[in-house]
């Protein structure tokens, strides 16, 4: 996720306080909205992102980097393979989000470093990770409320 949880909660607080509350006429409902604000405000600094998804991504990305390095070594490009191994070694051990981000960036750099496109063995080295990660990222998402958001 690109937006920190604290910023999302701040956005919810702002929307409720500045945009929703002034439009609520019922005292009873206003009381409930204030209660939500109170809960969110106190929750804000007690929440942290779940570590498990980042740990899973980091493990999978590290494996993909190793496979890609092996494919490049087999493809007579030991310098590129060494750079990938260096990137893998340089990735921080933790926290999991920082490690996953570093390995994600290393993979993106490795792809961008081939403007002519990846060779088939290189694609094979990345395929399992990229496919699984895109599905892992989808798995926790809830059904979209875009229709309700648009219609009001």
């Amino acid at each position, binding site marked *: 996720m690109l937006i*920190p949880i604290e910023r999302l909660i701040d956005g919810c607080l702002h929307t409720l306080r500045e945009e929703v509350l002034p439009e609520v006429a019922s005292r009873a409902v206003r009381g409930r909205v204030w209660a939500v604000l109170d809960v969110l405000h106190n929750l804000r600094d007690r929440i942290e992102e779940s570590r498990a998804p980042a740990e899973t991504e980091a493990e999978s990305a590290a494996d993909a980097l190793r496979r890609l390095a092996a494919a490049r070594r087999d493809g007579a490009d030991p310098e590129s393979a060494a750079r990938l191994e260096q990137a893998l070694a340089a990735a921080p051990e933790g926290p999991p989000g920082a490690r996953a981000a570093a390995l994600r960036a290393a993979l993106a750099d490795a792809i961008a470093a081939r403007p002519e496109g990846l060779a088939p063995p290189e694609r094979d080295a990345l395929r399992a990770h990229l496919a699984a990660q895109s599905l892992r*990222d989808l798995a926790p998402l809830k059904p979209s409320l875009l229709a309700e958001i648009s219609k009001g």
Partner: protein
Amino acid sequence: MARCLHCGSGMTPLELETHLARFLTGRLGEPVEVRRLERNTEGFSQETFSFDAQLGRETRRYVAKREPVAGLLEPYDLEPEFRVLHGLAGAGVLSPPTPWFSDDPRVLERPFYVMERLPGEVPLPTAGAAGTGPFTPAEREALAGQVAEALARLHAVDWRKRGFDFLGVPSPRRGAAERELARWEERIARAGFPAPPLLADALGWLRRSLPETGEITLVHGDFRLGNWLVDQRGDAATLLGVLDWEMVHLGDPLEDLAWCSCELWRGGTPWAGAMIAPEDFHLAYARASGRAVDPERMAFYRVLAVVKMIAIMLTGIRAFRDGRTSDLRMAIFDHQLPFLFALLALARGWLTGV
């Protein structure tokens, strides 16, 4: 003063009505009273207000579009869009007649234009209860041909004759594709988030695959379900208008066709624009336009469509993250991006054979 959700600014609805009435009185040359001002909720980019203008006993219906403080397509410049809409009067492309533009901050604080409010409703590109999309089978059948013809008519506009070369004419051959790719790459870079592997892969493929085109046309840039005004009757449907011209430019007409028929705007159905199978829609467009639907160009613009949507979402996410907007609708893109990356994975063959 607190920002007003209805008017999206420091102005109260009453002040907004008063300023608009003064503006319209000056333009129309007779006293105008503004009534029933309402902020529309559909648009996620520009601020859109609908209102009635009362001239004596006559009521005219208008829409005002105003630059937002921050948003999905920043930096904003409404003037080119206005000039195109204004210049399209009488061109038969279902664009709303758009008589006035102002960048005088004393009127509505930020630049805006006023267009006539066309009849019809805007069906949304969201899944219906039974996964059927927003149209009945009869509506789908009635609408598909009209949409294909409307797109063909738009691409047939003589942009030189209408003076639209101010939009910038792409260089021949690969210029149109190159310019669009550069436009969206630049927006991705400006959002300032590291490109994930699937995006790096897609961008690399797009750079290697720039298609040539022998023709440059007016390109709407956002021609799709969600920007069509439709009269739906259950047993038929009529396309009455095409909205949201803020991405209008000169380029390859197949860019519009790919955007319109891609997975982003299918309303939970497998059909282009929630109407008919994509290949059938391409055939309908080919018949209406007399233009071959080149698969190489379509493949490029299909991937570019997803990259463009990612760029738009990243822009909104950046604006929210940095606190330039507190509009939570920008934040929801953070959990919609995985769908787009999955589309890229699909389009680029990463999901096959796994």
